[in-house]
Structures are given as structure tokens and as C-alpha cells.
């Protein structure tokens, strides 16, 4: 049996077992892991290739559902699960932020103020991911360091049914992770959490609560003074 170190090659190895074609047999023997079959790397792919392409909602719902299930196997409670989803979102956010700014080209700006970055998230970022703006962006009146972005019907929650014993869970934690990554990237360290906050119109309304670290406000205060 030809043992190939690549996990991506197993499919083609299996196919050669059933219908052996010399073309594949040759490749598995000679190529090393570094190169794909076409010998094209990620650097040969244009970053705008997928800019306008869309993903079907059912495919997304399936993948997201699988991701939640996978995460659920490895955690102890709701909080742990949300943290895991947050981390998954964080990795997406880090990449998406750079991609978004790259696509803006010469007009790309780094946001240096709290309000600027929050608007960037609720407008540009939200539109790039979900093709709509976030529904509201508010400041928490009681706390100086807290802001809220709300989404009336987050697409990630559409096909997730939460069991009764886990009523605390909101899979919007994934989006919260994306938001957190964008804030961190711009040097606005914050904790972002997703909370279910239904109203009469929107039973699935989710609020992302953003709590900035104290040094962010300190810096902001200095900038206002100067």
C-alpha cells in the first residue's frame, strides 16, 4: 500500500485503488507536500477572486452547524462552548480585517478613534460578511466603556436550535469573536460577548456587548485633550 503523508491525497489514493490510472500513480510517487497538483500556490491566487461570489445559505448553515457540534464535543459548559466559538470567530476576524483593508486599496484607513472603529465594524465589516449593516450601534448609558451592536436576526442563529437546558447559549459568539479580532487588530483591546435580547418584532435579536479595556479609554481621553 502506498502510504502518503498528505491527508488531502487519501481520496486520490483510494480512487487509484479502484481504477488505477498511471497519471495519479505517478504523481503520488513524485510530488512533495509543498506543491498542489497544479503547482500553484496561494500566492498565485488573486485576493479579489472571491470578492463578489456568494455562498449558499444552506451550505453555510450546514458548515456552521457542524462547527458548533464539533466544538460542543470538547467543552464542559455553555460558557466554555461560547468561548470556543469566539475563538473560531477570532481567527476569521483577523483575516477578514486585513482582506477588507486590502480591498479598499489606496483609500484604506486605519481607524484611530473608538467611534470610528465601531462604525467600521457595524457598516463596512458587517456589510462585507452579511451584505447588510448591523441594525443598531449604541452606547451603554451606565458604563463609560461599554458599547452595543445589535443584529435583529443574525444569520448564524437561523438554523441553530438551542435546547432548553442550554438556554444561555447564543451562537452569535462566533460573530462576537470576529468583532473582537477587528478591535484587537486596531489596538482597541476589548471583550465582546453575544447576548439574546428579544423584542416583540424580533424574537432572535442578538446584542453584541463590547467592553473596552481601561487603557483604551485612557488613550481616548488623552487624544481629546490634545
Amino acid at each position, binding site marked *: 500500500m502506498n502510504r502518503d503523508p498528505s491527508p488531502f491525497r487519501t481520496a486520490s489514493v483510494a480512487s487509484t485503488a479502484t481504477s488505477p490510472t498511471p497519471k495519479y500513480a505517478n504523481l503520488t510517487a513524485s510530488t512533495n507536500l509543498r506543491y498542489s497538483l497544479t503547482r500553484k*500556490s*496561494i*500566492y498565485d*491566487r488573486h*485576493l479579489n477572486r472571491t470578492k463578489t461570489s456568494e455562498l449558499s445559505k444552506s451550505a453555510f448553515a450546514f458548515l456552521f452547524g457542524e462547527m458548533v457540534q464539533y466544538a460542543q464535543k470538547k467543552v464542559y459548559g455553555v460558557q466554555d462552548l461560547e468561548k470556543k466559538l469566539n475563538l473560531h470567530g477570532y*481567527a476569521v476576524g*483577523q*483575516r477578514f*480585517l*486585513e*482582506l*477588507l*483593508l*486590502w480591498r479598499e486599496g489606496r483609500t*484604506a*484607513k*486605519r*481607524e*484611530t478613534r473608538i467611534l470610528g472603529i465601531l462604525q467600521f465594524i457595524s457598516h463596512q465589516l458587517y456589510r462585507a460578511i452579511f451584505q447588510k449593516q448591523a441594525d443598531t450601534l449604541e452606547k451603554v448609558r451606565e458604563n463609560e466603556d461599554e458599547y452595543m451592536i445589535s443584529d435583529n436576526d443574525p444569520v448564524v442563529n437561523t438554523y441553530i436550535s438551542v435546547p432548553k437546558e442550554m438556554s444561555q447559549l447564543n451562537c452569535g459568539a462566533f460573530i462576537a469573536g470576529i468583532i473582537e479580532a477587528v478591535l484587537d*487588530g*486596531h*489596538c482597541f483591546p476589548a471583550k465582546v460577548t453575544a447576548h439574546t435580547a428579544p423584542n416583540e418584532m424580533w424574537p432572535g435579536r442578538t446584542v453584541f456587548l463590547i467592553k473596552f479595556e481601561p487603557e483604551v479609554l485612557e*488613550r481616548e481621553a488623552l*487624544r481629546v485633550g490634545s
Partner: protein
Amino acid sequence: MPLVKTLPLDDVILTEDESTAVYRYDSGVVSFADLQIARGERGLKTGAVTISSSFLSPSPSHLSLDIVVVFVIIIMAGSSTSYYFVIIGTKDNPLYEAEFGSFKQGGDGIAKFREEQRHMNQFIAHSSLDCIEDQQWASKEMYLKTVDKFNNTWVSCFLTGGNIKFLLVHDTRSDEPIRQFFTDVYDLYCKTLMNPFYEVNMAIRSQTFDQKIKAAAKKYL
């Protein structure tokens, strides 16, 4: 440092490899222009002249009378520009570094840093991180232009949205080609980041990345 060639004119003393000259000045105020003239008269190599340090030492000829100011002039080897490029992560950790020379004006693209300059480049780049931290809040631009200057070397910086810094240490000023170079680097960095096995702050070891960076340098610098 062995001083072998003692030149009578203006007391300019050269080291063996002609990379450093020591200029003694006995009276009056010495200016940078004076040193430039001294250099021209001696027909030294065409390269940037830097006053790297000035110190006081007693003159052997006027032992008890006077104190002579000695300037050390460092003459950059070679005539073409050399560049040192480094990508710095969010925790001030280096992700990638490269050296290359200019292809413009008949350059061969090989960095001509002297051995002691090579590690100085790293120090210069590192010390400029503080300047960047100051300047990143004053402007919304990603390309911060030159952020720091050390003797005759400048440091240019490009700051991405994810707080990754691209630093270029160079000895000639030219904003526009450097901006174009950084734009290409940003493109390559984004592509690296799209790799699901790459995470932010990981060192970039891809050979393709290295080749593409060198190609961008050849195109613009």
C-alpha cells in the same frame, strides 16, 4: 581599528579598507559641510558620509595646550543603495527579514552593508518601533512614510490594520517607490494570512513569499 594611512591634508586618516576616516580639527567650529569638503578633496569613495561619533582626545602635538576634537567619519561602502526589510508582528516579534540592494542606477540587487552595519540595521529597526507607536495615532494612513532617522539611514514604515509593521531601513529618500513596494508586500502578506494553517504572528518561512518579496524589490527599489 588600525590607522594605517596618515594623510597630511587636513589630518584625514583612513582605515585600511577606506570605510572609515578620522578627521582631526584643531580650532574653531567644525560643521558637516567642512567634512563634506574634506571628503571631496581627498577623493574618497562616493558614498554617504556620516559623523558617527565625536569624542575628545588630547592632541599629541599640543599636549598640554589644547584639546582636539576628533570626528569619525563612516563612509558607506559602495555607491548603490542597500535596503533592509523586516516584518514585525503585533508583539514586536520579527516575522520575516530580508536584505537587498538597489537595481536602479545599474545596481545588482545585492545588499552592500558592511558587516557591522548589518546588525546595526536590526537595532535601528527595533528602536524605530517607539516612534511608530507615537505616530500611529496621529494619522489614519497605513503608509507612515519615514518614521525615524539614524545618521544617514531612514526607516520607512507601513502599518496594516492588524497592527503588523513593515519596516524598511534605507539610505536614500524616495517615498513613492517605497509606498508601491509596501503595497505589494501587503498583498503578499494578506495572501499568506489567507492560508488556514498560518496564524497571525507566526514567522513566514515560505520560499515563494521570499521570492515574491525579492521580485517586488527588484520592481520598485
